[in-house]
């Protein structure tokens, strides 16, 4: 350990300037995060969230390359010290200059946001683990198989471009209302971690560069393949199965329910175009109690025709090519116990199968929430909402001349998307939104994975005049409704269930939205 400390002190002496820069970036990010009251970060925080991981990765590369593993001219190899000393020195550096400062930063943010850090140690250590798995280990592994920093940066750029292309192809930038697939992400990260650990061990224990490079390339390919090919519905199903909270009593089920009328505004929201049509098939939800509110996430859907043709729907994502997918499906709630199976498809496809008798087979993930446990948030107030953290509301300027009522819930623990937010006016009129239903498009990086806080928000757009009843008025709230009104948030998730269903004998042309 004496030798490890000696090498550590040498690395500190060598990299003090670079270390100071990363600490300064972290301090700036901490400051920005500490004051943020939105899901979306500000411009500076957005860029800092991108810059800091790069700065850390660069620092890791520098410290690893101080005593490089590749080559046959290294000074340290002929020094009388074993590989564990070198390894320990590097680990100590990364711990002292990256992980401990990050832990302090997260604790400061939590404390400043009103969450005593000591109560959230599992979340804080979870963040550390995420940093190890997503950044420290991959950066260290890469640094052990390159000759110099230039090679490291080129490899980072190459991997970054490949990941961006792949994420675009895979619809990685899912909308906030798409459930987070923890199992899918965890399995992918386990593969990545196994690969990066193998590379690091091969290099520090044996300095087997060719083998380590091959292992690294295999790890990258295996990670990408796992991410791309691990079936989303199956992993979400597993995630749901691992959730101990299940609906008690009659299981949830979905079945065809004739007799519901067409929704009045659906034609406006998803209008038919020369190339696309919308279908709305009424379905009933059974097994729900009055105290339960359920959110449905379509995981799979297949349309089978009597002619033996099969058409699979794509999961809804936020990709810009959403309207170019042949068939997109989701379930839309339409009142207590009722929903609609929405199909948005190419007109050419519709024309082919519209008069066939089809069977629709679907799988949805149902997240149930307690409808009777709504928490009241006064306008401009801040309250604790179990299961959601701390929720607050305030009137903010959305754009010049346009105000909105913002509701933000934040917590160090995960906040499930889709929590109901209802603005109740004094005259008993109400407007509904869901936490995380709005996504602001900004011209800078918006990912805040380093933040120890989870935040979800919902916006009500305020208008000077009452436009209730007009087209599109569902999203607009008169300013007068705010005074004397209050917010209700429905927080607690009670169960996660997978529902598979079959809608038989469906003639699609009967459900065309006009």
């Amino acid at each position, binding site marked *: 350990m*004496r*030798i490890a400390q*000696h090498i550590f002190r*040498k690395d500190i*002496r*060598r990299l003090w300037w670079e270390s100071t820069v990363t600490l300064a970036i972290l301090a700036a990010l901490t400051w920005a995060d500490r004051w943020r009251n939105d899901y979306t970060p500000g411009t500076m925080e957005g860029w800092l969230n991108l810059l800091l991981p790069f700065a850390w990765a660069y620092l890791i590369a520098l410290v690893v390359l*101080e005593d*490089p593993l590749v*080559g*046959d*001219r*290294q*000074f340290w*190899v*002929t*020094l*009388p*010290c*074993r590989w564990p000393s070198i390894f320990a020195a590097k680990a100590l550096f990364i711990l002292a200059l990256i992980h401990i400062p990050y832990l302090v930063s997260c604790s400061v943010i939590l404390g400043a946001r009103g969450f005593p850090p000591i109560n959230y140690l599992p979340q804080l250590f979870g963040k550390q683990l995420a940093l190890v798995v997503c950044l420290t280990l991959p950066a260290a592994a890469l640094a052990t198989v390159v000759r110099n920093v230039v090679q490291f940066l080129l490899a980072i750029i190459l991997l970054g471009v490949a990941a961006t292309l792949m994420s675009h192809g895979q619809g990685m930038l899912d909308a906030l209302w798409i459930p987070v697939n923890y199992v899918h992400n965890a399995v992918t990260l386990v593969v990545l971690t196994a690969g990066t650990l193998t590379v690091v061990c091969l290099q520090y224990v044996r300095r087997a560069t060719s083998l380590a490079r091959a292992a690294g390339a295999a790890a990258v390919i295996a990670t990408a393949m796992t991410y791309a090919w691990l079936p989303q519905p199956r992993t979400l199903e597993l995630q749901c199965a691992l959730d101990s909270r299940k609906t008690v009593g009659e299981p949830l089920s979905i079945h065809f329910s004739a007799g519901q009328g067409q929704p009045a505004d659906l034609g406006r929201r998803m209008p038919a175009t020369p190339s696309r049509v919308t279908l709305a098939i009424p379905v009933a939800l059974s097994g729900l109690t009055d105290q339960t509110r359920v959110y449905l996430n379509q995981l799979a859907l297949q349309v089978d025709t009597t002619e033996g043709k099969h058409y699979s729907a794509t999961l809804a994502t936020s990709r810009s090519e959403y309207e170019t997918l042949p068939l997109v499906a989701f379930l839309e709630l339409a009142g207590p116990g009722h929903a609609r199976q929405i199909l948005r498809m190419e007109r050419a496809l519709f024309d082919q199968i519209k008069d066939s008798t089809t069977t629709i087979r679907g799988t949805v993930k149902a997240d149930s929430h307690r409808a009777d446990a709504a928490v009241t948030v006064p306008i401009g107030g801040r309250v604790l909402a179990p299961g959601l953290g701390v929720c607050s509301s305030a009137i903010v300027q959305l754009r010049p001349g346009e105000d909105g009522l913002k509701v933000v819930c934040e917590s160090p623990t995960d906040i499930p998307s889709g929590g109901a937010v209802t603005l109740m006016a004094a005259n008993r009129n109400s407007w509904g939104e869901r936490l995380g239903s709005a996504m602001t498009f900004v011209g800078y990086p918006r990912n805040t994975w380093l933040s120890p806080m989870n935040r979800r928000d919902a916006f009500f757009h305020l208008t000077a005049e009452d436009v209730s009843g007009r087209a599109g008025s569902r999203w607009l709230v008169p300013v007068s409704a705010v005074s004397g009104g209050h917010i209700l948030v429905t927080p607690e998730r009670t169960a996660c269930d997978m529902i598979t269903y079959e809608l038989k004998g469906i003639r699609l042309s009967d459900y065309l939205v006009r």
Partner: protein
Amino acid sequence: MIQMQALTRNFGTLHALQGVNLEVPAGSVFAIVGPNGAGKTTALKLCVNLLRATTGRVTVMGVDSRRLGPSELARIGYMAESRQLPEWMSTGYFLSYCKEFYPNWSDDDAAELIRRFELPLDRPLKSLSRGMRMKAALAATLSYRPQLLLLDEPFSGLDVLVREQLIESILERTPEATVLLASHDLAEIESFATHIAYLDEGRIRFAEEMSTLTERFREIEVLLESPSDPPPSPPPGWLNLQQSGVTLRFTHARYDPDSTDGEIRRHYPALREITASPMPLRAIVYALAKSSGRTAA
């Protein structure tokens, strides 16, 4: 001190070393010489585990070089022209950084070497001349009194004064320390090496004590009575045979004062005079390289 057994090292399709067998006795100053690309540097790197052998093994101080631990490395000094020193360090910090690794470090020796080499302690290594950097590296190496010194091209490109200083400092450590050095500075090596090995195209052509080598190589000049044809196949040991009129010249690699005269007379019965001149190391190596179709460095 060092045994190389059937040592082979390949870099892709390049065979840097091919079945090298070599033994470096304790207390010797053993020089490996040979042309560029002969495999000298590779051989030394294999000794300190900077490279791994493709096949065969190197035993250093009785330990397989792949398993050299701190206790062995603390007694080995390695200095190479190509070694990546931490050039950002000041000379003083470099010496104090190295000191922590070596239990046998002697501050007195370090101070003496700093004084002798006139090392500027406050200047970073990268700002030093090549000679001064080598001096700093040698000071760091000699200060822990290694039992084995591995030196790869330690003097190339250095001025005479610096060279003499380095050689003097190294020789002060012998015979307590064994020295294995790779070099193509033959004139320098001749002055202090006790043993020599000639490495060419990854193979050891010869390895022996310097005294026996210089004894057995002679530049032979034979004055014939009349021009005559050279033997169809020259006897073993006759290298680079040249005949011009009545004068025959060659390098004899197996010179024996008692038998060589008779051997020549058997092939050239009518001769007037035989002259056998001692050869400097440079001439021996050149003759060997020429005989194998290569030019010595």
